């Protein structure tokens, strides 16, 4: 079945440092989505990547979709305490979404 691996599981950074989480799928995906879940909250949609090799930016966040459409990354430049939360990739395998295990980001002020 579909497997989505996400690393690292946890990341503790000092405010101002960069952060990257990686998502790898065992199969080729139609598209991939990224979500952020704040502590005690629900997942909130960040972005969707559809095309092979696609790169999208949202302010300090950069999202990439691999050429083979099997992996993706989220990079945050100069983290802030508001970035705290768990970041999930969600692999869309024809409308059945498989969430990665998430990367829990903690930012120390």
């Amino acid at each position, binding site marked *: 079945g579909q497997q989505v691996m996400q690393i690292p599981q946890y990341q503790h950074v000092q405010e101002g440092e960069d952060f990257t989480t990686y998502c790898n799928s065992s199969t080729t995906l*139609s*598209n991939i*989505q990224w*979500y952020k879940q704040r502590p005690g*909250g*629900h*997942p*909130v*949609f960040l972005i*969707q990547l*559809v095309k092979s090799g696609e790169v999208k930016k949202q302010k300090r966040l950069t999202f990439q979709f691999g050429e083979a459409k099997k992996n993706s990354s989220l990079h945050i430049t100069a983290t802030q305490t508001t970035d705290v939360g768990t970041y*999930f990739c*969600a692999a*869309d395998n024809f*409308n*059945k*979404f*498989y*969430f*990665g*295990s*998430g990367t829990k980001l903690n930012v120390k002020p």
Partner: protein
Amino acid sequence: AAGVIQSPRHLIKEKRETATLKCYPIPRHDTVYWYQQGPGQDPQFLISFYEKMQSDKGSIPDRFSAQQFSDYHSELNMSSLELGDSALYFCASSLGLGAGANVLTFGAGSRLTVL
């Protein structure tokens, strides 16, 4: 803007009891997904509906059933509850299927505690 509404927000049940969770999607969203999230875990896909028909099935136990009604709201019925069913249950809705339309908007979740 209207969001996905889930009820109840909290539910406490005894083992072997039955529970029903309700989800009201965003207006005009015809697709509903149910997820189960245990403590410190990622959301696990249970089941989804598109236009009132089941569109996909994930790791939903046989003790659970769900349906989407004519007004597009959905209910998740859980019977013979076990301790391991204690989790946060999220409902999400989307505008439809396919890239672009299938962005998930999550409700706040229903926290089920089985004692």
